[in-house]
């Protein structure tokens, strides 16, 4: 949810329309996220141009045949900084990162493009004789930013491809993974005002099969990916300093349990009451999926280890204790490696996002463990929203 960054960035940079005004203001021509949205898949995997901001992102923990561990991140953002100027209507930002846990190495690259010239975009490709020409071997929905692509195939599977120099990924994601909605009806409330919310769903656990290339060497990998898709026009009127987000894929007594938490930090250091989370138990056999929505008061998280970036001098809390009393969970979340800092877009806009390892106990002291991704924003100095621009977080 570098969304926060991306949007902050774009709004500071380019968005004059909503400028200076109150949080409740919304750019003309955009819709607000309100209750009662009718979800429709696969259409809703695609773009929602009536909303100012939208992002898709994939993270995941992968293993090679010889036990090598990797983390990956591939994210696509769409922002409409200036809806009435055709050339500036759509702006696309993308991040690609790989973590080599054993080698303690981290790679990332950031890319940004206008949508107007076809360098980046989101498009439905109808199955047909020409589909192959336009979209590789696929037909369905494609997200792309230059050569980085995410294809939602007609089978329901997802295909991710990205390369920057000697770093690449080519991953097939399981078509049968379940969706989880973050908030009732997929509406994630971010503040008290009308429409101060986003539409937000996740595919928290998709099995992955594919290849990654790290510094020129290829590894066949398998693992689990987490996908988030969120869109909104004005979900946060913020005085936020930043937030901490985590998506954890746990095994509790042999059963999968997925947990998403985000903790909004206000500039005065307090925790925002609209921090929230989701617990999700995927359906198995006959038993249906169980989704539990968590309010700020339902969970506690606190850091206990910090790492200082040698480049930005930012101090990131890279290990956390998490308590969800309602579920009887007590967890320790630790970075797989310390340095997973992304420095994009300019000074003050660095953040940390990386693979984590989770250990803890469930109800009755049973062992719980797993993996996940952690995102930490607002630690690198000047990340500060001075005026109330629209900005977003999960």
């Amino acid at each position, binding site marked *: 949810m570098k969304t926060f960054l991306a949007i902050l960035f774009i709004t500071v940079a380019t968005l004059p329309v909503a400028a200076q005004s109150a949080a409740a203001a919304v750019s003309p021509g955009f819709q607000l996220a309100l209750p009662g949205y009718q979800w429709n898949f696969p259409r809703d995997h695609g773009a929602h141009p009536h909303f100012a901001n939208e992002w898709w992102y994939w993270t995941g923990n992968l293993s090679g045949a010889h036990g090598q561990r990797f983390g990956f991140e591939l994210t696509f953002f769409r922002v409409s900084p200036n809806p009435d100027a055709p050339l500036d209507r759509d*702006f696309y930002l993308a991040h690609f990162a790989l973590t080599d846990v054993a080698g303690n190495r981290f790679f990332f690259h950031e890319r940004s493009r*206008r949508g107007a*010239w076809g360098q980046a975009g989101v498009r439905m490709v109808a199955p047909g004789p020409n589909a192959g020409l336009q979209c590789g071997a696929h037909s369905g929905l494609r997200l792309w930013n230059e050569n980085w692509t995410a294809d939602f195939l007609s089978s329901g599977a997802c295909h991710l491809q990205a390369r920057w120099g000697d770093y690449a990924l080519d991953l097939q994601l399981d078509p049968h993974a379940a969706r989880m909605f973050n908030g009732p009806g997929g509406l994630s409330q971010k503040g008290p005002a009308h429409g101060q919310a986003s539409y937000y769903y996740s595919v928290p656990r998709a099995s992955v099969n594919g290849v990654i290339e790290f510094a020129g060497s290829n590894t066949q990998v398998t693992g689990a990916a987490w996908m988030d898709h969120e869109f909104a026009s004005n979900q946060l009127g913020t005085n936020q300093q930043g937030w901490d987000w985590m998506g954890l894929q746990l095994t509790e007594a042999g059963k999968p349990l997925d947990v998403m938490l985000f903790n909004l930090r206000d500039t005065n250091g307090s925790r925002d009451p609209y921090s929230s989370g989701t617990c999700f138990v995927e359906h198995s056999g006959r038993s249906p999926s169980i989704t539990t929505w968590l309010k700020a008061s339902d969970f506690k998280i606190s850091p206990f280890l910090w790492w200082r970036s040698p480049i930005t001098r930012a101090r990131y809390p890279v290990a956390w204790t998490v308590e969800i009393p309602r579920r009887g969970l007590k967890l320790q979340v630790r970075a797989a490696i310390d340095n997973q800092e992304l420095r994009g877009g300019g000074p003050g806009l660095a953040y940390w996002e990386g693979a984590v390892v989770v250990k803890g106990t469930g109800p009755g002291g049973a062992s719980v463990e797993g993996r996940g991704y952690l995102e930490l924003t607002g630690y690198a100095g000047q990340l500060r929203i001075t005026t109330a621009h629209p900005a977003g977080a999960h």
Partner: protein
Amino acid sequence: MSAREWSVAWKTLVARPSRNERGRTALAIVAVALAIAVVVAIRMANRTALESFEQTSRAVAGRGALTVHGPTPISSTLFPRLRWLGAYAEAEPYIDRYAYDPRAHDTLELLGLDWAAEVAHHLPLNRNLIAPGSRQQRRAAVLLTSYYAQRYHYRRGDWLPLVLNGRLVRLWIAGVLPQSKLATAQSGHIALMDVAAEAHLLGQVRGAPLRFDGLQLRLAPGVSEPWLASQVQPFLPADDHVEPAAVRRRQTEKMVSAFAANLRALSYVALLVGAFLIYNTIAMGVVRRRTAIATLRALGASRRAILAVFLAEALLLSVIGGLAGLALGRLLAGLALHLVSMTLNALYTVTHPKAVRFTAGDLVWALILAVGVGLISAWGPAREAARVAPAEGMRPGLYETQFAVAKHRWLWLGLACALLAAVCAKLPAIGTVPFWGFASALMAVLGMGLLLPFAVSHLLRLGRSRLLDPASAAAGRNRWWPLRLSLGLAAASLLSALRRTSVLLAALTTAVAMFIAVAIMVGSFRVTVSTWLGETLRADVFLRARDWTRSNNAPLPREVLRQLERLPGVGAAGEYSAVPETYRGQRIFISTAWSRDLESGRRNVRLAGEASGPMHRGCPLRFLRSAGDWNIWRRGSRRGEVFVSEPFARHFDRWPGRQIQLPTQAGPQKLRIAAVFRDYSSSQGYVFMNLALFEKLYGKPLASSAGLYARPGMTVERLLAQVTQVLASMPGERQALTVNDYQSLWREALKVFDQTFRVTWSLELIALAVAILGVANTLLAVALERRRELAVLLFLGATRRQTRRMLLGEAVWIGALALLFGTLLGVVLAAILIFVINVQSFGWTIQVHAPWTWLLPACLLVFAATLIAALGPAGVAAQVDPVAAVRVE
């Protein structure tokens, strides 16, 4: 050599004499200082001018490792096909133009970058560029450098008027660029805006695919530049190129370097003159201290000590002179830079050099040059000093005759040099630097220096025998006799010191020759250009976009042109267009011109009233080898042939009958050259074709300049008044256009020409000043050295007036001989400059046209200056105390 031996030798041979001859030592130092100052000033000015190119190319083009550019714009429709490129490089479109700021009267480089791509590239562009403001403001948002904003008092939120592509536009200053590499480009004369906004400002249609000047490619780590270039090339228009980013500006840099090399070569002339003078100073020191040397040798001083002492003297002179020269050079450099950058802007491209910077390299270079020249020129005399035998040296009066002048050997050496000069003149240039041309000039100078002893001794002997001829002396003791006598005695005296005379003459001759050569070259060039301008500028009123420069081919706004053509005073109109192209890796221009009779509407017609002129108005060109211009033009055009400018023909060695392959819109085309035309407006090549062919190959041209012809019976003044009146009603256009009548354009062109050669002139004048200082210095030495001889003359009944006149007589001989040989050498050097160096550097043929009308008076002035320089030494000669002078201690 012991310390004591050294100190005694130093005191006797250098310290004491120098103290007694402070004036002479000072003159020698001043001469060295001037010579070094010239070299240092030119070096600094050149470096600063070139650095400004390098810095700009690093800051702008160097942002990406590769650039895609070419005559065909890159369309935004290309992007979807280049998505694969994202794996290896970030590609960002750019538009890079020059614009003219009519408020500040300055030029700006307006660089359009893709703000969206910049978001990920850490540029401050995104921060401010599309800052809060109205839609109109956002569309014209620009970032200025803090330098430019401060210099011209612009603030954030102000509107910035700019003439861009022939139109007045208003840009909105969204912010000031913080200090960054990019902000140092063009020394701060740069502004950034969004590439799409700039495209729209340039008149591209909103909603249609945009056209960019090129792409900047930032490569992923580990990706090979040549490999990626080869992968990208197939996707590009045929005539576009993928090149390392710096190459594009390097083309300009290369031309500018050639220009800088020429200046540097000229600056060394002053140094050469300086070298002659150091040689002379030391040589005379040796002569005058022969007795002292001999005494020291008799007292046991070694040859090495004598050698070392004289070399040390030279070293001291050069170091002091070098340091003084450095300081003076630093002062002159600012002026030189001003002149150099004016020339570069006029001839090549827009450049904004920053202030001259003094580096440790300059210090080292100045000292190396000064010491090197000092030691090399002192080596010969110092060795002679070391060879002085104790006995012979102590005999007074034997000095000069002891130096056997091997003038015949030198004669042969001199002839060999002359031969080498002739050979070098035939060798081709290395790139555009006429290395062999300079070598040829140097050989000619050396050759003349070596021939001088022989020639001078003959002339002086002839003069002496004629003037002092006993028969005629007895016969005609008329009122001219005193003059004849002093001239004759002076000749004899010079002859007895042939070596010293020859060296002094060599210095003065070289300076005079260079002066005359440059005068002939520049004078010829000026007449040639002036004639050519007269023949090619045929219209009465000329129009041009204010932001037009050689490297920024801004078109004239068409509707304004049409409106002006409809004026009642206009009988016909001509338009001219040139587009940049690349031919064999070099920038050239494809140009065309057309004229219309506004009544009949017919194109390229012979216009009324033209037949009487030397040139048909319908034919826009002057051809190299023929007068029948109109027919060559018509015949070539009918056959679909092209015409190339003389610099093009020479540079690429393409002459009539040959084919050239040009990139065109329809792919590469082979075109035959019909003729070569004269073009002094640019040393870059031009290919000219008629309108029909141009339209076929490159599409409809946009006029970059236009000429209006007055209707018969209409005066130019009235036509100009009409044009000015129309423009006054259009304030935007008035600021965007430059309007000239024939006279003022002609004057402006010649002004640019004169500016170009101002540096050259300054250099030659300084060399001449150095040489004349040398004359003063030498004659002063003569006066001091011959005190004993003069004293004897006084005892024999000569008056002080006569001794004084004798010394002036030497100055007359020196001045006259220097002018004689200087003119001879000057003509040779002028020929080398005109026919070798100029042709090789710029590709221009110049009609020889020596400016004797002012060159003769100038020569007389040099002669007078020599005499004036001799006045001081003559005064010294007149004040000799005969008793003291003949006393032998």
